[in-house]
């Protein structure tokens, strides 16, 4: 029998290769004692290499291995966001209990695996690749969430994530099956053609397929009503992982969301556009009202993540170049805002007994300005106040929405933002407008953050470079792109044109 080896553009898949190799190396480093401590470093190198290789392909789109992947600026920009987030996560994981629990090597290997999945997902143009990548993204996360083995919350979050997540992917799979059945192809392009050829425009089979695919993706991007895992998992997971999840997963999922719904299902726009718009509106409301009065900061950010996902979904709904650009811009901004916040939360988790409870940041303004300012900026940015990247992002999104005749969704964003002020500013007020919380060590600890086996308090955590550094960096970026957004806008618009010529 004859076997034609497929033509493989190794340059094109070099980022994937880099990540894979790095993954294996890191894993091995865990085995050989001399390198035990080198895992973070190796991971950083891997990420840097991958990033470099991706940037190398900036602005020359190509299709790889028999249409399994499409490496274009959308994919690259999203991958870069994911990698950046991962890098932050690595730094923030230094001295994190979870790494010791899981073993530094394994921990970082899993992280890299997840990143690999994201990078692949961002490029996927084929149902099978899509599904595999999605799973490769998720499964390591299921594990990572649970890596703080001594904490019930961590395990619980892992299990919840696994169960609900698998239901999501099963649904997605089933939807894919329908789409494949309807069109006889697993390629996004092929699907589009199939729909046209078989005259399945608006056919129930296809539409249900779309619905199921939408559910699967909505789950990953934590769009209400498929969001319920989000607060619990965010709260339970080790905080660096939460930060990573919050941003990177969304980014990757939105990338494939855009690609899939544009390339494969663009023709069914009329059918799914209103539905997605409705979902966006729902999650804006649910996320924002849910976040009100949450004492656990991570949980609050979880809900806010739901709301933010709602805003971003708007970028998908209008399915336009500007929509895509807006979405990418927002994701980038969102990365900075969130990571800044999480960095500070981690620092406080380690130096107070309050874990991620809001009490942990009381009086921070006076006590630790270098933590207070970044957190403040993050909160204001998430609330979309001017002079931060968050404002520009909202502006960009709303502009796209109005262009796409979805002004009412823009208004929804405005309303959501109003509600969101109530909980974002609550944190700011706690930092600047209330005295520091004095709690005797061993006082009844707060929610998940510090469970019975609370980690030993490190009173200097608030001064460690690997916590303050990232926080300040993220905050600086947030403000910088709020005042000089042009470069980031350029970056994002590439992604837009990549998809819409």
């Amino acid at each position, binding site marked *: 029998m004859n076997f034609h080896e497929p033509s493989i553009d190794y340059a094109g898949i070099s980022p994937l290769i880099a990540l894979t190799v790095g993954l294996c190396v890191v894993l091995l480093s865990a085995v050989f004692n001399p390198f035990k401590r080198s895992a973070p470093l190796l991971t950083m190198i891997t990420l840097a290499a991958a990033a470099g290789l991706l940037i190398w392909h900036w602005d020359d789109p190509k299709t790889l291995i028999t249409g399994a992947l499409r490496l274009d600026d959308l994919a690259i920009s999203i991958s870069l966001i994911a990698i950046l987030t991962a890098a932050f996560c690595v730094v923030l994981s230094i001295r994190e209990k979870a790494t010791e629990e899981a073993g530094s090597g394994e921990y970082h290997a899993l992280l890299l695996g997840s990143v690999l999945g994201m990078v692949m997902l961002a490029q996927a143009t084929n149902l099978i690749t899509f599904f595999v990548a999605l799973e490769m993204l998720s499964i390591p996360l299921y594990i990572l969430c649970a890596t703080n083995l001594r904490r019930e919350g961590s395990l619980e979050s892992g299990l919840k994530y696994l169960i609900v997540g698998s239901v999501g992917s099963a649904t997605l799979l089933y939807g894919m099956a329908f789409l494949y059945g309807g069109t006889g192809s697993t390629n996004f392009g092929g699907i589009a053609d199939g729909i046209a050829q*078989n005259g*399945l425009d608006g056919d129930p089979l296809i539409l249900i397929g779309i619905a199921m695919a939408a559910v699967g993706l909505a789950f990953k991007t934590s769009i209400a009503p498929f969001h319920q895992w989000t607060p619990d998992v965010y709260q339970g997971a080790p905080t660096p992982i939460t930060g990573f999840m919050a941003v990177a997963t969304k980014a990757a999922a939105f990338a494939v969301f855009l690609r899939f719904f544009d390339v494969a299902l663009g023709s069914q726009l009329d059918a799914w556009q209103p539905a997605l718009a409705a979902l966006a509106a729902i999650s804006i409301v649910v996320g924002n009202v849910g976040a009100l009065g949450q004492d656990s900061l991570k949980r609050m950010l979880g809900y806010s993540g739901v709301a933010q996902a709602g805003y971003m979904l708007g970028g998908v709904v209008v399915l336009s170049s500007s929509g895509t650009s807006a979405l990418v811009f927002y994701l980038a901004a969102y990365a900075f805002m969130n990571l800044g916040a999480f960095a500070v939360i981690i620092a406080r988790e380690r130096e107070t007994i309050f874990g991620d409870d809001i009490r942990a940041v009381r009086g921070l303004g006076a006590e630790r300005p270098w933590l207070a300012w970044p957190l403040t900026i993050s909160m204001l940015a998430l609330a979309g106040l001017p002079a931060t990247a968050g404002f520009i992002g909202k502006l960009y999104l709303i502009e796209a929405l109005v262009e796409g005749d979805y002004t009412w969704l823009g208004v929804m964003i405005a309303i959501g933002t109003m509600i969101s002020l109530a909980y974002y500013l609550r944190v700011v007020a706690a930092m600047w407008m209330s005295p520091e919380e004095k709690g005797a060590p061993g006082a009844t600890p707060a929610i998940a953050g510090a469970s019975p086996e609370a980690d030993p308090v490190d009173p200097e955590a608030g001064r460690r470079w690997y916590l303050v550094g990232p926080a300040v960096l993220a905050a600086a970026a947030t403000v910088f792109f709020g005042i000089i957004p042009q470069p980031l806008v350029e970056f994002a618009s590439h992604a837009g044109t990549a998809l819409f010529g």
Partner: protein
Amino acid sequence: MEEVLFFASAIGALGGALGVIAMRNPFYSVLALIVHLFSLAALFLLLTSAFVAAAQVVVYAGAVMVLYVFVVAYVGGGGESAWEPIPGQRFLAPLLGIALFIELSIAILSSALLALGTQGPEVQPGFGDPAAIGRLLLEKFLLPFEASSILLLLAAVGAIVLASNRREGEAHEH
């Protein structure tokens, strides 16, 4: 003849599935699943996909289920109480199941896709045999294939991380 086989295995699959969700004791559920899997394999054969059927039997009924049995044996599969703490769940769950089934069937039956009503086109003999699938895996779907292997690796690592207790000691070192 074909019909008989279909219905037989369909009943087997469905019965197995129902068994899974009906059995109080996880151990029996596992057994029910195995039944289900075997009947699925049979259905695959009816659909002239030998390789998938084979994989089904080997991977699932073989490896995975064994793993299950071990775990059940390890954690001890005590039956669960019939008490339902979530209000409305017991009532809504089946309802949703039925709704789901109805919706999906409607989608299938009301679809304009004519091919659904056929047995499918005539296929050349080699269809679905290991060679064909293998070629596809190595040519068109090389990437997913490789990727899934990496995924297996990750899963393994994860399983170790979660299940092994070697960290217990180390955790207290520093």
